[in-house]
């Protein structure tokens, strides 16, 4: 029998399809294009020159994530706001020391995380966020897909194969406003650590390394949390788009 090579819609690992999917493959594989070194150098030069517009663009793009991450380490929102303000001042005062070894974003979030942790400890927050997030990743959770969707282990032909396979979605339908609302809602219901990882990775397009670095978690835990988050959000979209997948 001839072995047929089934053409996948895309190959996430080899990046064989260089077409419009290329950006997505990068994104899926955590190689999202972030500001390149050249762009960072230019931005740093503009900041040093006192360019308000450059500063405010950076503040708009990083501010919401900075506030969320600071908030995970400290006890209330007002304290998180203070930490973010202190961080920006430290960033501005430290621009001359930024050497471009990491991305500007990574450097800023390192300063933020250090300050937020210090502040959290000083205020007597007992359990550091990294401990919470690591415990979350280590704790057992249910399977990614409802086990009822699969045949039992003793099925003669397809042990643990799909009994109710996923239905094909159209991109148009998935990107409709209502569907995006369902997705947002699903993300908001996730445990803190999963929510933060999927927001940074998939909503904001950060790389795996950047997320692990900013949240001070291991690569493995970053993947575990991302997996749980994506699985749950997919299931929520499915419940909305095809409420009753039919058994094969």
């Amino acid at each position, binding site marked *: 029998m001839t072995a047929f090579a089934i053409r996948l819609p895309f190959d996430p690992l080899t990046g064989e399809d260089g077409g419009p999917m290329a950006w997505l493959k990068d994104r899926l594989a955590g190689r999202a294009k972030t500001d390149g070194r050249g762009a960072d150098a230019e931005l740093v030069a503009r900041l040093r020159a006192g360019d308000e517009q450059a500063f405010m663009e950076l503040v708009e793009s990083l501010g919401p994530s900075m506030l969320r991450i600071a908030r995970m380490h400290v006890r209330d929102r007002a304290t998180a706001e203070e930490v973010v303000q202190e961080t920006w001042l430290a960033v501005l005062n430290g621009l001359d020391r930024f050497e471009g070894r990491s991305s500007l974003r990574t450097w800023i979030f390192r300063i933020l995380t250090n300050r937020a942790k210090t502040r959290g400890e000083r205020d007597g927050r007992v359990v550091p966020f990294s401990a919470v997030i690591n415990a979350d990743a280590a704790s057992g959770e249910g399977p*990614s897909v409802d086990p009822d969707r699969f045949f039992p282990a003793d099925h003669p032909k397809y042990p643990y194969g*799909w009994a109710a396979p996923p239905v094909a979605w159209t*991109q148009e339908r*998935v*990107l409709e406003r209502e569907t995006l609302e369902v997705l947002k809602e699903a993300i908001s219901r996730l445990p803190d650590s999963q929510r933060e990882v999927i927001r940074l990775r998939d*909503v904001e397009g950060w790389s795996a390394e950047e997320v692990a670095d900013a949240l001070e978690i291991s690569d493995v835990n970053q993947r575990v949390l991302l997996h749980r988050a994506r699985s749950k959000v997919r299931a929520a979209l499915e419940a909305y788009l095809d409420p009753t997948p039919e058994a094969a």
Partner: protein
Amino acid sequence: MTGPSVPLSCRELVELVTDYLEGALPADEQARFQAHLEACDPCVGYIEQIRLTVTAAGRVEEADLDPASREALLAEFRGWKRG
């Protein structure tokens, strides 16, 4: 080339999708994963749904910074500029 020894089931595959997409599977696991996909349209369909989930997440707008924070940071920048 030696074929993957134990075939992967669909139920196992869905637990490995993220490791696969992140390029984190060991070579032999990756071979099992790919061998399964080549023979299983429903699992290809599942990965396609994950792909669309990620695409859709990228379209979600993050909340804007509130005006008070923006003003405070702008004032901070102006203060820093003055030295």
